[in-house]
């Protein structure tokens, strides 16, 4: 093949340009740590990166919502625990003061403690997390129980998304757990009746309230179980969401990020190739008849 001076220079231009481009791309990859920046770098990976990024955000958001719901359930459980303790104390008093050996004055004093327990239950059922009253159902902007123990909330049960498209109930119906809607025991009503029987020194009334207190304790225990099982589900959902998010993050890293060792190796190779290309080009320019004549 006949070689002309212009072809020598054009080949040098082309070859040095290509070597420099490869070196630049290798530098960019090594310095940014990314191998996919433009969709054209790896079309299939680029599409998957977008999908995995959305998965990452989705699972992160689900985890955030689940954790927040779990925190509220923990408050719910704490409040119900306090209510259960109050009912147990009320039962102790009822059992104790149903004994005819106690005087009317002692029962009147116990009535005051029962009233205090009543207020404790109301206060616990008006527990607030942030700006919300957790026992109010959907009417969570105001205290769900009046001072007289009347339920002002609604039967709404909040739900949280624990996985895409899957929901879990995350609130306890106070109207059922405390007011006995649906055939249960009116816990606050029972406490009021006990207080009234104590005040009236009515031993039969006190004995009658024991059944209600027992049923109330079981009712509260059942509500706690419900909250507890929801918390177990939420714990599992939180762990699953974290795993989903981490898997998406790992997947994105695998798709988008460059392998450090491979990038460094590629960069060294590209720089060596550029050096060789420059040296060869410079030498090809040196030999000319012009310098000999």
């Amino acid at each position: 093949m006949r070689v002309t001076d212009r072809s020598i220079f054009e080949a040098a231009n082309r070859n040095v340009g290509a070597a420099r481009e490869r070196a630049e791309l290798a530098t960019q990859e090594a310095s940014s740590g990314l191998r996919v920046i433009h969709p054209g770098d790896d079309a299939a990976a680029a599409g998957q990166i977008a999908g995995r990024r959305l998965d990452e955000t989705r699972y992160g958001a689900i985890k955030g919502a689940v954790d927040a719901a779990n925190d509220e359930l923990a408050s719910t459980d704490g409040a119900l625990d306090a209510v259960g303790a109050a009912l147990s104390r009320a039962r102790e008093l009822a059992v104790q003061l149903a004994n005819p050996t106690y005087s009317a004055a002692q029962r009147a004093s116990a009535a005051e403690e029962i009233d205090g327990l009543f207020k404790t239950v109301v206060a616990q059922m008006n527990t607030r997390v942030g700006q919300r009253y957790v026992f109010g159902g959907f009417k969570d902007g105001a205290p769900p129980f009046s001072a007289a123990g009347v339920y002002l909330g609604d039967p709404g049960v909040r739900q949280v998304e624990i996985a895409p498209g899957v929901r879990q109930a995350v609130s306890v119906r106070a109207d059922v757990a405390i007011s006995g809607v649906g055939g249960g025991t009116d816990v606050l009503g029972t406490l009021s009746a006990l207080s009234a029987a104590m005040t009236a020194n009515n031993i039969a009334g006190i004995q009658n309230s024991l059944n209600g207190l027992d049923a109330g304790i079981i009712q509260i225990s059942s509500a706690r179980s419900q909250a507890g099982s929801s918390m177990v589900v939420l714990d599992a959902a939180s762990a699953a969401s974290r795993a989903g998010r981490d898997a998406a993050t790992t997947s994105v890293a695998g798709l988008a990020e460059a392998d450090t060792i491979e990038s460094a190796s590629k960069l060294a190779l590209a720089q060596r190739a550029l050096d060789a290309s420059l040296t060869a080009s410079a030498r090809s320019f040196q030999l000319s008849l012009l310098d000999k004549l």
Partner: protein
Amino acid sequence: MADLFSILSQASGSLSAHRNSAATASHNLSNANTPGFARQRAELQAMLPAEMINGGFIGRGAGLLTVSQARDRFIEAQIPGSMGQAAFSSAHSAALQGVSALDPDGGAGLTKAIGDFYGSLRALSQNPSDPGLRQVALSTARSMSQAFNRASQSIEAAKSGIDAKLTGTVAEANTLAANIADLNNQIQVARASGGEPNDLLDARLAATDRLAALTGAKPVPDAKGNVSMLLANGTALVNENRAAKLSLLPNAANGGHLAVQLTRTDGTGPMAMQQSEFGGEAGGLLAARDTTLDKAAKSLDTLAFDLGNAINLVHRTGFALDGTTGRDLLVTGATSAGAAGRLAVDPTVDANPSLLGAASSAGTVPGDGTALLALIGTETQALSTGLDASGALSNLISDFGASASRLAAAAQHDGALLDNVTAMRESVSGVSIDEEMINLTKAQRSFEAVMKVMKTTDEMLQTLLSLK
């Protein structure tokens, strides 16, 4: 009879021939880097003897037969097509590489914005009465709309950039077409006066190569020595010594982008030209604008329209804190055309976060986030394409990326083919400085030899004249 004066006369002619050889080598050296220049050769011949002298023919020295060009028609015929193809794929690829709106990480931020929007709905669903979370949800809805707007504007900006580039391409193509028509005329005139106008042929070849690279037009020589330039559908850009004229006109049917028109070589027209009729840079630019980028823009519009409507459909069933219902959350417009560019949060809701429909009924506000949970469901809901938002976005990015990747590979491949065929032409027609220096030295030596002949002849004449 060959006398001494005739030797001087033939030496004079030979000197002229060798001087022409040196001049040709000099011309070649001067044009060693001129694009389109084909090296020339001064072809010398022995001058035929005029008469027989004592039974032998005495020659009459050397003369210039012609100055020819070193060309390989087979290779040269492949160059315009290679140039057109390389310019097509290069222009198409470069236009796509310049679009960053669909970068998977970054770009217009679509992925993050969609994810953040649904993330804020999830947070709000757990506390729908919280005014701060309502504000955040609206803010992320705005961000999502703006991300769609930015992506749409970025693609539109790329299309407008192509319009601007097309303006320059068409102007250069018109100049080249006029030059080729003029050169056809000049070459005919030069040939009529005898000889081959090598430098005019070089200029025409350079112009036809460039016009082929700009428009994909193919050179078609005729028996009269003209070269016409024909587009893919046979429309002439140059016909003998007449040139057509390309012009650009905003096309309302294509978003106001420029459409190409052609006024024929006979002056009729202008007629509308289709993208498929062009190759080369113009064809690549038009293909990038009207196929690949247009498809990406339409997919983006469809995604914005479908997702916006799916969100609105659910949001209309939600109840605001004041117990009202039936409101859209987003403004999508009536059709998908341009939806990504105009997507916005409904101004009434935007001005009042309490109007965000979170509850399932008027009686369950403010703590009911059931409608928000339904709204979150739109994230994984199949849209008109059969894919959910994530799938549609992934598909859009992959599809665009596949086009960009395919065209980058095509540009590299076509560029390599062009380099190869150009190198082959250069191998035949290019100037070698070494060769030309040798030719120059060879002509100089011959010139010196003939000068020696003249000097010797002169001495012989002196000898004769000094006889007494």
